């Protein structure tokens, strides 16, 4: 549209476009199974819940699962029931099914996602690069703010570590744990004028945890059969030391996300001299 289009015309055009789009959505949703018609037993996801993907893959290789009749939704895959606290040596020992999908079955996607986050953080740091200017706020934060943020930072940091260590047992995991740690560092910035974390240390820490992710994946490649394959024993479901390498990878992801988001907050909160633009 041209620059001098009246606001009313613009609004009416936008409203009509959105109405057409929403009617299209509505017509699509009408045909879709929704509410009580949703049946997880007719989707592939039931294999993830039953922890039964390898058996199904073997049957597919033998020509039994996706046979030429094309029946991907058959329900006669052999299945052994899982009991919490008793079942041993499952295909994937995590009690949280979402975690087992994110880290184990689709771990390569997570590696790509962490890479996208790394690129975004690098872009922010590159665009805001420059020599640091002295921050001159009119008011200094009070003593209570300064002491309180420092005390609460320790508690928040511990809570973040708790979230990502227990990622395979309880809701949570590496991503929210890292975000919680970054929120604690944001609190430190609010508590004191001119607070400076060790930027180089954050970068090194983040790179090391990223490398740990790749090295764990390569270990799976050389010791078992494929990249990011589970090479540790999966113990009893529900124990802290279970689920093989999921705990290790979530610790690496948590530290990486925490350092990365802290670096983003640091880059955005610090004023710099104009060097280039």
């Amino acid at each position, binding site marked *: 549209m041209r620059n001098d289009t009246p606001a009313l015309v613009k609004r009416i055009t936008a409203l009509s476009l959105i109405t057409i789009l929403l009617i299209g959505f509505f017509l699509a949703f009408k045909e879709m199974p929704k*509410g009580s018609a949703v049946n997880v037993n007719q989707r592939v996801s039931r294999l993830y819940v039953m922890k039964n993907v390898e058996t199904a893959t073997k049957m597919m290789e033998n020509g039994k699962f996706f046979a030429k009749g094309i029946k991907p939704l058959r329900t006669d895959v052999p299945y052994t029931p*899982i009991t919490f606290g008793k079942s041993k040596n499952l295909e994937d020992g995590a009690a949280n099914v979402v975690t087992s999908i994110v880290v184990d079955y689709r771990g390569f996607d997570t590696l790509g*996602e962490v890479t996208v986050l790394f690129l975004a953080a690098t872009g922010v740091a590159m665009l*805001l690069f420059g020599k640091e200017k002295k921050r001159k706020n009119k008011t200094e934060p009070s003593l209570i703010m300064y002491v309180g943020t420092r005390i609460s930072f320790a508690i928040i940091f511990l809570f973040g570590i708790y979230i990502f260590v227990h990622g395979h047992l309880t*809701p949570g995991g590496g991503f929210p744990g890292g975000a919680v740690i970054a929120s604690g560092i944001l609190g430190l910035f609010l508590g004191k004028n001119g607070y400076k974390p060790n930027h180089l240390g954050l970068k090194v820490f983040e790179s090391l945890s990223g490398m740990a992710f790749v090295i764990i994946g390569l270990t799976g490649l050389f010791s078992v059969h494929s990249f990011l394959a589970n090479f540790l024993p999966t113990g009893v479901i529900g124990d802290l030391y279970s689920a093989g390498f999921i705990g290790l990878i979530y610790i690496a992801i948590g530290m990486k996300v925490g350092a990365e988001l802290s670096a983003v907050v640091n880059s955005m909160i610090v004023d710099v001299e104009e060097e280039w633009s």
Partner: protein
Amino acid sequence: MQALQIFLQNWIYLIGAMAIFGIGLYITLTNENIFKIIVGLDIIESGTNLFMTAIAWHPKAVMPIYTATNQLVVNGKVVSADPLPQSLVLTAIVIGLGTTALALTIAVKIFEKYGTLDVRKIKEAKR
């Protein structure tokens, strides 16, 4: 009362997702301020995540976590919510934060260079 409950179970989350998506798109299309456009993109993201989680749910679902009292498989049938869209949404939220931070940084750089946040004035501004 029963009919109302069934209608709500089938439609309320989808209606909410559609409405949030539409409102975010309206903000993005009609505003000239770059910050307001990024706020609109944030709201669109919330609507999309709500839609993708809503298609995984059915009224008798339990959460997809094995605990001592939570049975996910009863008589060979899965009764939990679908875990696959949930894991996709989990990664989409984190990527959304990264892209939002990058977009805001570019907006700050544009303000430093042109002295305005209005997309109409940026086009006409002298270099």
